[in-house]
C-alpha cells in the first residue's frame, strides 16, 4: 500500500534541516516524560487500513475515544512528526520510512514488557534491517512487489519477470515510477540480490532497464491498477494489494504474479512517535490489534497479510489461500526487503537519471 511522492522526501528533509537550524522542537528532542496520558488515542494511518467496526469495538471495550486521520503516502508522516506539534499517538510508516524516523529520533522505543501479544508475531517478519530487534516498530501488514497482467491479452500463464523485458510486449508494459523497485525487478531477473552493491551487477541491471525503456508505455506509481484494468497495458509492475484487488474482482481477466526469481517484500509497521502522550491507551491498542480474532478481522477487511500467526485460523480461506496475498514459504524465501544500500544509492541515482532521460 505504499506510495512515494517524488518531491516530498527531499522537501521533508529540507524541512528537518530548517527546523533544527531554527532550534525548534521535534527532531533531536528527548522523548517527553509521558505518564499514562488520557483515555484517548490519535491515529495516523494509511487509508483503508483499519475497518471502522474494529475501532468502534475498541472504544466500547476500553472507553478510549479514537480519532484518526488518513494518509496515502509515507512522506506526510515524516512531515507531521518533524513539525513537533502534531499530537499523534500511533503512526504506520513503511519499512524505509521507519529507518528514517528512527534516524531522526522521531520514534519512542517500545516497552517490550507492556506488549502482551508480542508472541503472536511471526519471527520471519521481526528483527529486520530497518529496525533491528524491533526496538521501535511492530509489523502491521506486509506485501510484495510483482506485477499484474491481463490474462486474455497475454495468452498464457506467467510466473517470471521475463515478459516485462520481452521485446514482443512493446508498448504493453507499465513500470512503477520508482528507482529501487525497477532495479529490484532487473536485479532479481538477472539472478542477483535486489540490495546488490556490486558495480558490475548494477551496471548490468541498468543496461537491462535501458533496453527495456522503449518497451515501456508509462512509468506510474499512482493508479497503475486502473491502467491495467482499463486495458491500456497488458503488464503492470506494482504492489500486490492493489493488483490483487483487481484480480479478485475479475479473476477471468487479471492475475497477480510474484515472480519465481524473487521480488521485493515490504512491510508497514506500527510505531509510537516520540512526542506521543497517551501511553496507556497506546499499549491497550497495540495489544488489541494483535489479538488473533481482531487481527483477522483487519486482514479480512483490508486484504493485506499480517504477521500474526494465531490470527490465521480466523482469516477467510479465499484470502489466506490467495498466493497474491499470502505467498508460499518457498516464494517468500526469495523475496527481500529493500535495505539501505549506502553509497550505491548514488550510482543507482545516476543510472536512473540516464534511463529516464534518454
Amino acid at each position: 500500500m505504499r506510495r512515494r511522492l517524488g518531491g516530498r522526501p527531499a522537501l521533508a528533509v529540507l524541512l528537518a534541516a530548517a527546523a533544527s537550524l531554527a532550534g525548534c522542537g521535534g527532531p533531536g528532542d528527548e522523548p517527553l516524560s509521558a505518564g499514562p496520558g488520557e483515555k484517548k488515542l490519535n491515529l495516523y494511518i494509511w487509508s483503508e487500513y483499519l475497518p471502522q467496526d474494529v475501532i468502534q469495538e475498541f472504544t466500547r471495550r476500553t472507553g478510549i475515544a479514537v480519532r484518526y486521520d488518513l494518509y496515502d503516502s509515507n512522506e506526510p508522516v515524516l512531515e507531521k512528526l518533524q513539525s513537533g506539534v502534531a499530537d499523534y499517538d500511533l503512526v504506520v510508516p513503511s519499512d524505509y520510512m521507519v529507518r528514517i524516523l528512527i534516524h531522526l529520533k522521531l520514534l519512542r522505543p517500545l516497552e517490550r514488557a507492556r506488549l502482551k501479544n508480542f508472541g503472536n508475531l511471526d519471527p520471519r517478519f521481526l528483527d529486520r534491517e530497518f529496525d533491528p530487534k524491533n526496538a521501535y516498530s511492530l509489523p502491521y501488514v506486509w506485501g510484495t512487489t510483482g506485477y499484474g497482467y491481463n490474462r486474455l491479452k497475454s495468452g498464457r500463464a506467467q510466473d517470471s519477470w521475463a515478459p516485462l523485458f520481452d521485446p514482443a510486449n512493446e508498448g504493453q508494459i507499465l513500470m512503477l515510477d520508482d528507482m529501487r523497485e525497477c532495479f529490484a525487478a532487473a536485479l532479481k531477473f538477472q539472478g542477483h540480490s535486489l540490495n546488490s552493491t556490486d558495480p558490475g551487477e548494477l551496471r548490468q541491471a541498468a543496461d537491462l532497464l535501458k533496453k527495456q525503456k522503449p518497451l515501456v508505455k508509462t512509468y506510474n506509481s499512482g493508479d497503475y491498477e486502473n491502467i491495467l484494468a482499463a486495458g491500456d497495458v497488458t503488464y503492470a509492475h506494482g504492489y500486490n494489494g492493489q493488483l490483487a484487488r483487481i484480480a479478485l474482482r475479475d479473476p477471468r481477466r487479471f492475475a497477480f504474479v510474484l515472480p519465481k526469481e524473487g521480488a521485493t517484500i515490504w512491510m508497514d509497521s506500527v510505531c509510537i512517535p516520540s512526542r506521543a502522550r497517551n501511553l496507556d491507551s497506546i499499549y491497550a491498542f497495540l495489544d488489541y490489534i494483535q489479538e488473533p480474532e481482531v487481527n483477522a478481522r483487519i486482514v479480512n477487511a483490508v486484504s493485506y497479510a499480517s504477521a500474526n500467526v494465531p490470527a490465521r485460523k480466523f482469516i477467510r480461506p479465499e484470502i489466506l489461500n490467495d498466493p497474491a496475498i499470502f505467498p508460499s514459504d518457498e516464494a517468500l524465501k526469495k523475496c527481500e526487503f529493500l535495505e539501505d544500500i549506502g553509497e550505491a544509492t548514488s550510482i543507482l541515482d545516476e543510472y536512473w537519471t540516464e534511463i529516464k532521460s534518454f
Partner: protein
Amino acid sequence: MRRGSPVTAAYSWLVYVFLYAPIAILVVFSFNRGKQTAVWEGWTLDWYRSLAKNDLILGSVRNSLIVGAVATVVATAFGTLAALALGRYEFRGKGATRNLLYLPIIIPEIVVGAALVTFFGVLSLHLSIWTVALAHVVFSVSYVAIVVRARLSGFDRSLEEAALDLGARPVQTFWRVTLPLILPGVVAGALLVFTISIDDYVITSFVAGVGATTLPLQIYSMLKVGVTPEVNAVSTLLLLVTIVMIVIAQRLQQPPAEGLRD
C-alpha cells in the same frame, strides 16, 4: 447588438463545453449504479444514501465547512481593512506593505505550507483544525485585499465627504456609505476565499493535525483504493451549495446599488 460570426459562436460553445463537460459528467456519474467511475450502468440514489452513513466523508465535509467559514469571515474582515488602509491613507512603509500583501499569492503553496508548519512548531502551536483555519486566513487575506482595492480605485470620495458634511460620524459614514459601496468587492472577495479554502490541498496537508482531515485530504487519501461515486455525490452537493451561495450573494449585492441611484 451585433451578431458574431458562426465560427466565433461555435468556438465559444466549445470553450464552454471544455470547461463544464467534466463537471456535468461528475454530476451524472453520482447517480451511476456501478462502482466504476467510467462505465454507465443505470440510475440510482444509492451513493447519496451511503454517503449519509459515511462518517469519514461527512466528518471531512464538516471540517472543510468550519475551516471555510472561519477563514472567510476573518480573512474578509482583515483583507477589507487592509485594502481601505492602502487605498486611503499615506503611511510609512506603505509600498512595502502593499508588496508584502501580494507575497502569499506569488510564493508557491508548498513553500507556504512548509514555512507555516515550521512557524507553528516554533510557537509550539499544536496542529489541529484551527491551525488549518489560520493557514487559510494567511493566504486568503491577500485575495480579499486585492479584490477590494480594485473596487476602491473607482470610488467617489465626495460621497463620503457629503455624508460627513451632513453630520454623520465617521463610523456611521463607514457603515452607511463606504461599506455598501464597496460591498460587491467585499462579497466577491469572501466568495473567492471560501472557494479557495474549500479546495486547498497542499497547504492544508502540511498544517492539518489530529481530527482535521478536510474534504480534499479525505478524497486524496481514498485515491489509493479507488474513488467511489460517493465522492461524486458529495462533490455534487458542494456544487449545489456553492451555486446557491453565489445566487444569494448576487441578490444581496443589488439593492444597495439601486438604492443609491434613486
